[in-house]
């Protein structure tokens, strides 16, 4: 589900033709192969049939931070079936570990009494749960229709362009974030900002880097209703 945003070719722009061989080669490139000749990444290791099936982690040997345990246990009481807590529990573990690392999954599995495999299957379905290590601060730039009509693709490029090596920031394109009224917009760890002008991007990225409040004047929660009769 979570393939990264692809960059679409710009339409209408006349691109000079590449050299003949290169053009043909580009169209004929083989899809990438992974280990073992597999076309699918992650499926390259053959199944080890001699291995024992994954089991629920042993509470005696699995260390779970007390706060995380308390949070998950509290979540589990809310539902008739405690398994319902798996997504909020994974989100809590991700907040602590930065991503749904094997260790994070193991800890949630231990508290919830489910197998790690079950949780990995769940986590990999959802865009906000990262099953690969990424930067801790998540910047989602909306690239859906209304935002892209207002320059979202350029915004995403600009944000990515401002990032430096060592930044603990994960900037990615995202589907409609439900804030098309402030297009083009981005969510910075859940704080919605927009409309973002391209010349504000350096300031914004700098604020994110320093952990400051991102573009305070442009935050959605400060916006009043535009309906002329809503406050009359």
């Amino acid at each position, binding site marked *: 589900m979570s393939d990264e945003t692809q960059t679409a070719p710009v339409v209408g722009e006349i691109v000079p033709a590449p050299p*003949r061989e290169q053009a043909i080669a580009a*169209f004929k490139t083989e899809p990438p192969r992974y280990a073992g000749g597999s076309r699918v990444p992650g499926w390259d290791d053959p199944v080890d049939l001699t291995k024992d099936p994954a089991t629920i982690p042993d509470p005696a040997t699995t260390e779970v931070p007390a706060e995380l345990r308390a949070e998950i246990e509290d979540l589990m009481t809310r539902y008739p079936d405690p398994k*319902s807590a*798996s997504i909020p529990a994974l989100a809590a573990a991700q907040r602590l570990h930065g991503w749904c690392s094997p260790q994070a999954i193991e800890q949630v599995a231990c508290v919830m009494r489910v197998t790690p495999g079950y949780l990995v299957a769940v986590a990999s*379905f*959802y865009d906000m749960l990262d099953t690969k290590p990424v930067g801790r601060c998540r910047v989602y730039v909306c690239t859906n*229709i209304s935002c892209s009509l207002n320059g979202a693709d350029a915004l995403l490029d600009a944000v990515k362009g401002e990032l430096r090596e060592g930044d603990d920031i994960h900037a990615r394109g995202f589907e409609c974030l439900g804030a*098309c009224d402030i297009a083009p917009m981005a969510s910075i760890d859940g704080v919605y900002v927009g409309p973002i002008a391209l010349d504000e991007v350096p300031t914004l990225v700098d604020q994110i880097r320093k952990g400051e409040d991102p573009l305070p004047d442009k935050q959605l929660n400060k916006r009043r209703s535009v*309906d002329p009769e809503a406050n009359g």
Partner: protein
Amino acid sequence: MSTHLLFKNIDEAGLATLDVYVQRGGYENLKKALAMPPEGVVEELLQSNVRGRGGAGFQMGKKLSFLPKGAMDKYVVCNADESEPGTFKDRELMQKNPHLLIEGILIAGYAAQATKSFIFIRGEYAEQAEILEAAVAEAKAAGFVGENILGSGHTQDLWVHRGAGAYICGEETGLLDSLEGRRGNPRLKPPFPANQGLYQGPTLINNVETLATAPVIIDMGGAEYAKLGTETSTGTKLVSVSGNVKNPGNFEIELGMKSRDIIEGLAGGTPDGTKIKFWFPGGSSSPVLLPEDLDLAYDFDTMAKAGSMLGSGAIIVVDDTNSVVDVALKLAKFYKHESCGKCSPCREGTNWTVKMLQRIEEGLATPMDLDILASVQEQIIGNCLCVLGDAMAMPLGSMVAKFREEFEEHIEGARARNPYPEEAAA
């Protein structure tokens, strides 16, 4: 009388707190409902003829009356996933007036005799989820949520449940699977959630706006509410307008208002010097309409008759500086990304549609590809467990049908720019 029922004084300071909400007469309608028999509440909702605001437009009262009677574990689930591109009305309502939604969930819960309720909010709405959580905690402390609510004997629990980012979790059965802690794959229907929903119990699922309308209906009386709007599309509707407009935002309108007055009046029309090329009347899943459709009344039936739908009430305006092919590709990529993969026609169909549109962009397509593209859409529609695939196929089909010339021109132009199409395709 003002047609502002949900957005009345929406920016009033402190409205998100219980104190201000109660000062405004909040939770009085809950008391009024609790004093009626549950069937009486259902009857009011039936009379109001209010239709679901989440997309399908099914009558709320009717859905309620489908729930089996008798003592058993029943549930109310509020659909606050709001992931349909272009839609952002629930967000503003939850952020600014969370107690109205909570009161609505309690009234619906009483009518359904449900003991447990959940607000399934998309994970991206972190700020709104926090506001809701605080509001629910306040309502619990004040005795509006919990055991024996206000001495009525009705017990109802309420929790805010955060999702983690997946459009398909807005589809009601995908939502239920996600709420049960799994991947959000839709279920085979029937059984419908009203009979077998959350944890296999009877479940009422409604959109945020639909549930937030319940207190208004109890206040006015169903018959009075039904006088607003048109005969078959009663009441007011929150409309999210975005895209190429000067004044994007949410507007509360009476259903049946002229579409032009919404787009060109309230939302200010397209930027100076540009004209409307086409518009989505109900989110990106609705077939597109043209400038000549602007004089149509904005209500469920008129939109359906025009070959589109009111959907979630999200108008996306595209002006004539944009290429229809670009918009089609954006749209298809979204559905490809969000297809859960359970049903082949949707999983493969969305994938191939993106590939074919990319061929068009890259100059590898011929006009015949447009017919293949259209036939792929036909093979998706009606062949899956849920309508996510249809939600791509219908608008895409409408774009190809209404802008075929532009697609063909684009194919020609792109082929001309690509010097070696035959060799490359070979």
